[in-house]
């Protein structure tokens, strides 16, 4: 059964204009319960807009977003979101940021239960030593790990990730990919990953769908990843199915990129002038 359905979605930020699909143009998507779907696309193709429509922060100009057959009207802890820009509350500590999400998701849980859970998730993302630090005392990578812990601790029915690991170093990135997969598998959750990294999509998803570059972004043809789980990064490189699907997707994206670049032949002259000379 489809847990999430997008039906004929159009989105523009400028409703006075004629073009109702300026950003997103007729998006149709159905995600089954328990599925892991990845959407890959270039920057500026409308990925974040799509995520915000699904999590309820934005409303489509036309069309419907259905979650468990109900129209999405608002945000909900049933859909946990890991944002690109972390979105932590700067005045709260790591512990408090996560605890706040838990209170929203499990208002009836005892203080002690929550405490155990907060600590469990902080440990999972390797931040136990930073439990009482505030976001500004943490590096970008560490902040994103807090954001991952915050989304996952609510045990959402659907995990929505908007380029969550883009700014992390390779080591942390691999660890978090595995943690996300573990939770998704253990709890039989549904996941939607937005990413620009084809390898990340191949490692994590059942299905990969490209989002063609905006304006008027639409979804491209889907690619199935028929590789048994658990997948092993080291051996993936030698897997024939992996190489084949990876090459297909990259070829498709490269073609899209070339089309876009070919459309731009404008030229601008740089005036021959230097900045003011600064004296220290």
């Amino acid at each position, binding site marked *: 059964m489809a847990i999430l359905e997008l039906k004929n979605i159009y989105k523009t*930020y*400028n409703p006075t204009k004629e073009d109702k699909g300026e950003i997103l143009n007729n998006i149709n998507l159905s995600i089954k319960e328990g599925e892991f779907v990845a959407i890959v*696309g*270039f*920057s*500026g*193709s*409308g*990925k*974040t*807009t799509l995520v915000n429509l699904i999590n309820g922060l934005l409303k489509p100009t036309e069309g419907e977003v259905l979650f468990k057959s109900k129209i999405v009207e608002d945000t909900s802890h049933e859909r946990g979101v890991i944002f*690109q*820009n972390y979105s932590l509350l700067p005045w709260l500590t790591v512990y408090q940021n996560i605890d706040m999400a838990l209170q929203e998701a499990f208002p009836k849980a005892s203080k002690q239960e929550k405490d155990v859970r907060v600590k469990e998730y902080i440990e999972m993302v390797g931040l136990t030593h930073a439990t009482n630090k505030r976001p500004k*005392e*943490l*590096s*970008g*990578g*560490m902040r994103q790990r807090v954001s991952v812990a915050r989304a996952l601790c609510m045990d959402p029915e659907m995990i929505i990730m908007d*380029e969550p690991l*883009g*700014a*992390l*170093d*390779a*080591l*942390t990135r691999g660890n978090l990919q595995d943690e996300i997969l573990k939770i998704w598998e253990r709890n039989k959750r549904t996941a939607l990953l937005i990413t*620009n*990294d084809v390898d990340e999509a191949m490692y994590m998803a059942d299905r990969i769908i490209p989002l063609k570059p905006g304006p008027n972004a639409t979804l491209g043809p889907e690619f199935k990843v028929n590789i048994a789980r658990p997948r092993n990064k080291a051996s993936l490189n030698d897997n024939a199915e992996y190489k084949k699907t990876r090459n297909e997707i990259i070829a498709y*994206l*490269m073609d899209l*990129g070339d089309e876009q670049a070919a459309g*731009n032949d*404008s*030229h*601008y*002259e*740089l*005036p021959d*002038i*230097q*900045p*003011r000379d*600064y004296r*220290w």
Partner: protein
Amino acid sequence: MSTVAKHIETQKFPANEVMLDLVDLKKIYPTPKGDYVVLEDLNLQIRKEEFITIIGHSGCGKTTMLSMIAGLNEISGGKITVLGSSIKGPGPDRGVIFQSPSLMPWLTTIDNVMLGVKQAYPHATKKQKEDICKYYLHKVGMDCAFNKRASEISQGEQQRVGIARAFAIKPKVLLLDEPFGMLDSLTRGQLQDVLIDVWNKEKITAVMITHDVDEAIFLADRVVMMTSGPKAKIGDVLPIEFERPRTRKAILEHDDYYKYRKHLIDFLEH
């Protein structure tokens, strides 16, 4: 934690070649449990027109160091000099590109770039200023969105506008904090080329943090490796001796490429 954390004799250059000099740099963040020493005994000389990339684990203090060079973060000990004079706060001689875009959301892309251009080119005509903005927005592939507000474009696009803004003022020193982290690999490659192009043409000194080892090698004259904090310092420095202009393809096929790559990855994994 690792054997590479031993003291590295940092290379010294003749004073007239040095653009940036970090001397016994120290950074302390006070915490309720006492002082947290992020950086200690950090020494690094960067020559004029050099391209330096910095790698290290997340949380080791890379951003702290860069923001201190930018003059945005107080120095707890030691000193930083630009062309021999100690820095006192931020200045237009040092342009910064942050990890995430820092635009004024209510201004158009052109006006965001114009903010910097007005400061740097008070003697230019209105037309010249506009042309400078347009030229650099075009360079980063944003010429389709001159009149869009920052709030109307995606984060990746905002990041590109931020890059155009920093380029447009032609700073003597360009400080880049993982500028391409949030971009897709295709755009990233394009912008690396733009960066090298501008760096080369304008004789800029560039210091860039990255977590992408391939990017670090492709761009740098020297890759600086920072040890893990607390008390992070320079762990190792790897000169990259590929000739310029470089192409990705030629570098990937070069015999030394995987030697360099292994050196950096070994450092990161220990």
